[in-house]
């Protein structure tokens, strides 16, 4: 019995696998939810970090760059432990799921901030210069020239990080988030059969990431390479 769902250990491997599938799928749901929330956090924090890193004042941009480097160079696992065990010492208590999503978001904000930066910079320098030669205002240059051309490059890159985030969700199991791997592990602890649940998790992951990668590719192909068209 787990989560009110019982499994069949005696009927052979296939029956066992079949009986634990619903339990794993509930774990999968948690995995996807955690990844989605983490992604939203990463997308927003990343934008903030990118803005700070690109700030005119060195007093802003330098610490932002250092922070970004620090986040990027330390393991998700340790960051997660830090958030989960240290923050409560200072009165900030978040449930495990939220802590996990936050940790994912923070870790990936360092990466997404680079996506924004690269996306904006890839809009050739020449484009901004041509716009400046036409005397367009900086705001208008950003909104009408740079952004529409950067977005089709940014979105697929962000999408790829969503896939990466999904693959990092199992780390949240260490703070007892019941995502797919944790569920499989618990089933294994109880049934002493790790082979089947863990293999199923691997297979489910393969399906999940191949499907979402295909989704990102589809999006990438659909987005107009030269920018969102303006008539």
């Amino acid at each position: 019995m787990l989560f009110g769902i019982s499994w069949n250990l005696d009927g052979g491997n296939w029956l066992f696998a079949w009986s634990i599938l619903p339990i794993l799928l509930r774990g999968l749901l948690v995995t996807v939810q955690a990844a989605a929330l983490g992604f939203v956090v990463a997308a927003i924090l990343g934008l903030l970090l990118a803005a700070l890193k690109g700030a005119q004042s060195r007093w802003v941009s330098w610490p932002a760059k250092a922070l970004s480097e620090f986040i990027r160079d330390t393991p998700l696992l340790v960051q997660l432990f830090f958030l989960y065990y240290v923050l409560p010492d200072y009165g900030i208590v978040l449930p495990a799921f939220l802590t996990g999503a936050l940790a994912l978001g923070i870790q990936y904000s360092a990466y997404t901030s680079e996506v924004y930066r690269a996306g904006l910079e890839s809009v050739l320098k020449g484009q901004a210069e041509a716009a400046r030669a036409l005397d367009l205002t900086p705001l208008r240059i950003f909104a009408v020239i740079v952004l529409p051309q950067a977005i089709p490059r940014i979105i697929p890159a962000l999408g790829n990080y969503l896939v990466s985030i999904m693959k990092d969700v199992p780390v949240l199991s260490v703070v007892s988030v019941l995502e797919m791997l944790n569920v499989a592990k618990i089933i294994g602890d109880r049934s002493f059969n790790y082979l089947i649940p863990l293999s199923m998790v691997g297979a489910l992951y393969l399906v999940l990431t191949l499907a979402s990668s295909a989704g990102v590719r589809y999006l990438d192909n659909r987005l107009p390479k030269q920018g969102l068209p303006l008539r």
Partner: protein
Amino acid sequence: MNEPIIKLEKVVKRFGDTTVLNELDFEVQPGEKVTIIGPSGSGKSTVLRILMTLEGIDSGMIYVAGQPLWHEYKNDALVPAGEAHLRNMRKHMGMVFQQFNLFPHMTVRRNITEAPVHVLGLSKHEARQRAEEYLELVGLADQADKFPRQLSGGQQQRVAIARALAMRPRIMLFDEPTSALDPELVGEVLSVIQRLSQEHDLTMLLVTHEMQFAQQISDRVCFFDKGVIVEQGTPETLFANPVEPRTREFLKGVTLEATVEQDA
């Protein structure tokens, strides 16, 4: 002689350690068509980019239409120009880049109307009429609804010229406008520029490697080397009788072709 419309006084420009413009003095009269030639890296593009305010200067003074370009008067003191002043000064000039730099996500028409509507404050309707007028001028009236990548390089460059003209600048800057084009496409762009050069109001400053073309359209040719003007004069005198050794050296490769031609 009139008051010059462009005047550079002892302009110095450095990139890191290299001095690209070395106390450059340079004047252009209103309506004059001036061609700049010179070896790669001699600072030709830099002059245009500074005039277009895409690049700052390290010292010296520049006047455009009688006003300082990179400085402004505040309480009677000359201070580095603010963005508002620069934007005002930029209105005098239009620029055509080597790589066209059209906005790839906008139709040809939108490329041309964008600035008139949002900078000059024209109505959409007026801007469209103006776009049509200049597309006509460059011979592309029927291409207004295409996107840049659907056009050939020569067509793209002509759109870029129309885009700059639509701002009605008094000065047009061309930075090697044909050097990114396949040889067969060069002609169409040159002929558009040639037509423009016959308009006497327009001041033109043109960097090019097309010597024959320079000869045809310019009132004056300036030979740049290492950030200074080595020699200048009418095309006839400069090409036929270059005085400075460096000019001769540079023009040797060029006239070689011509010599061979005359053998034929």
